[in-house]
């Protein structure tokens, strides 16, 4: 028996709504034939049967939201038995094709008696009427009963703060999430809830990079940013550690050929992460110029769709704001993000001597579903090596 399941069209997709059955139970279908129309958040699409056979059972009623990965229909041989657990779970939801005309009126046994206003208030406050005991004539649930239930629900949400009044806080301004901030919020919460993030950190000496920046400035007059070195270091390390240059799509890890590092940029409207395509093939100076250009265009809201898509890894930096160490949220569907903090002079013990070195802390957050701790640590180690010997970055 084949299952026709709700596919995931994009990483953020949770479910789709069945809007039209193109086939009925008993219809014969050939492989890859569309059998159902589904409405996703962004688009409407058709879902095909994975193989030929007879539609044995439609499992989802029209208009229902079906979770990604959940079966919508069963396709098999005409005499093939339907698995018992599915038959039991899903059976009565869809009338068979020949019963389409008949209207089945189910007895409303469990429905409590409630007044119109009680019903409306319960609906608006998402209160389950079957959980309320009616105090009106004949046990009818009346407005007062719903108000008491609402009070009770509110009471349960209150923090236990002793017998005194709950402290209320004056709101001086409210900001409705919109535009970039909304997208950022959605992406971050998706990333946060749908990955298994693990953070590892490592210190790296930035002495050589700082020295090199001064030399480049002297030779060419060009200002190359520390971020550009870190981006290049990450890109180069990804060449050897492809597992981190990847994403997870359902049960398939996709490892990318191109290394396209995205750089998190703070704008007045919110966070963006434009992409430097083929980062590993570009020089540090080129990367630095591209970051400068992307930053300028981010500030002017002039980024194109191609600037914002196709990233395979992200680098983010809060060092400019005095942050030493932080664990950023993975930018979905990417596998990992590298954060680095402030570069500052610190005592470092080399052999038996204390030296002063410009140190920064690298923090790698990776999705443990895709990659384990050791390969992630090896990648981070490689980044550190490259940053401490920047000649290898050219």
């Amino acid at each position, binding site marked *: 028996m084949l299952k026709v399941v709700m596919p995931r069209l994009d990483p953020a997709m949770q479910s789709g709504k069945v809007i039209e059955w193109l086939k009925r139970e008993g219809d014969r279908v050939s492989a890859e034939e569309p059998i159902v129309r589904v409405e996703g958040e962004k688009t409407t699409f058709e879902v095909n049967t994975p193989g030929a056979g007879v539609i044995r059972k439609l499992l989802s009623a029209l208009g229902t939201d079906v979770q990604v990965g959940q079966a919508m229909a069963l396709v098999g041989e005409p005499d093939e038995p339907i698995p018992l657990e599915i038959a039991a779970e899903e059976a009565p939801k869809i009338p068979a094709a020949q019963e389409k005309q008949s209207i089945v009126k189910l007895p409303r046994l469990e429905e409590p008696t409630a*007044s*119109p*206003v*009680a*019903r*409306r208030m319960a609906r608006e406050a998402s209160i389950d009427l079957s959980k309320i005991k009616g*105090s*009106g*004539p004949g046990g*009818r649930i*009346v*407005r007062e009963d719903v108000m008491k239930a609402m009070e009770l629900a509110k009471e349960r949400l209150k923090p236990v703060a002793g017998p005194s009044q709950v402290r209320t806080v004056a709101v001086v301004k409210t900001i409705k999430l919109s535009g970039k901030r909304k997208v950022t919020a959605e992406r971050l919460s998706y990333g946060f809830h749908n990955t298994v993030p693990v953070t590892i950190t490592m210190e790296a000496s930035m002495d050589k990079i700082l020295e090199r920046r001064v030399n480049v400035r002297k030779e060419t007059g060009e200002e190359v940013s520390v971020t550009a070195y870190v981006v290049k270091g990450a890109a180069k390390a990804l060449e050897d550690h492809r597992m981190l240059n990847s994403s997870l799509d359902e049960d398939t890890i996709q490892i990318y050929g191109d290394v396209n590092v995205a750089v998190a940029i703070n704008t007045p409207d919110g966070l963006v992460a434009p992409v430097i395509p083929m980062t590993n093939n570009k020089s540090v100076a080129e990367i630095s110029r591209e970051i400068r250009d992307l930053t300028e265009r981010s500030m002017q809201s002039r980024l194109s769709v191609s600037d914002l898509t196709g990233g395979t890894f992200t680098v983010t930096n809060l060092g400019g704001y005095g942050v030493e160490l932080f664990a950023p949220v993975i930018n979905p569907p990417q596998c990992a993000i590298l954060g680095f903090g402030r570069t500052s002079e610190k005592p470092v013990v080399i052999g038996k001597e204390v030296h002063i070195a410009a140190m920064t802390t690298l923090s790698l957050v990776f999705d443990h579903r895709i990659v384990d701790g050791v390969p992630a640590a090896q990648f981070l180690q490689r980044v550190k090596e490259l940053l401490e010997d920047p000649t290898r970055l050219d």
Partner: protein
Amino acid sequence: MRELTYADALREGLREEMLRDPRVVLIGEEIGVFEGVYKVTRGLLKEFGPERVRDTPISEAAIAGAAIGAALGGLRPVAEIMYMDFLTICLDQIATNAAKMHFMSGGKLKVPFVLRTQYSLGRMHGAQHSQFFPSIFFQVPGLKVVLPSTPHDAKGLLKAAIRDEDPVVFIESGVLYRTKGAVPEEEYVLPLGQCDVKRKGDDLTVVAVSRVVSEALAAAAKLEEQGISVDVIDPRTIQPLDLATIVESVKRTGRLIVASDDVKSGGIGSEIAAAVLEEAFDSLDAPIFRVASPHMPIPFSPALEQAYMPNADKIVQAAKKLVG
């Protein structure tokens, strides 16, 4: 403020309008020499003369027809039909002539005619002299239907009815004629088509009409003692009906009783209940109850008549069923 009886307040309203406008004339049985069976027209023949206060033979169709003709001819007649029961005799004149001419003449004709009458339910007048069937009239497009419940409202609404350009059926309550109430000395006119909230409350709305308004107020006082606070609304005119005020109240209280003297089937209560359901279904916390007369001829026996009529106790009982 001074107090007047319902009958005296009406008489004052008639007199003021006759003084104000020479086109206002009265026509009816026993209204002149006998000064009206309920003395509403007392002294008016003496003051205004037989040209303006005209006694008629016993023919309700003739009274209504003559008054409608006079209205078309430029007067503002106030006809009196002694008992509401007799309105059936002149129903053709009212429903088919008075109510239609303005519309069928393309607005050229006006019928500024008031038909005063009274219903005697509660006065032991029997099945043929006690009837109250206002729905027959509020069902007829082109008529206005006024039902005053107090001396104050009776005077103010009668003056408005006389000044109105449309035919108005003005239904008085016989048992209210001798009741007294505050009536200001200074002149006032009340608008047609506007409810009066007689008492404010939060738990229940009682819409009461004509004689039953005082019963509703008595019921509200009893219910208040039991912790149920009642909004008592008097529509005062049921055509046009000020539904907005009633709906606003029901949205607040969630419960409605309509109390009136007509029979329950197809009556004022049925109409208001249906209209409120359309407008405020989602605000109702209980079914809508009608407190009205049973669907049967009005008994002559005083005991049976009292049992037949809506009263404060019946409203209290209905309220308790609603509030639980």
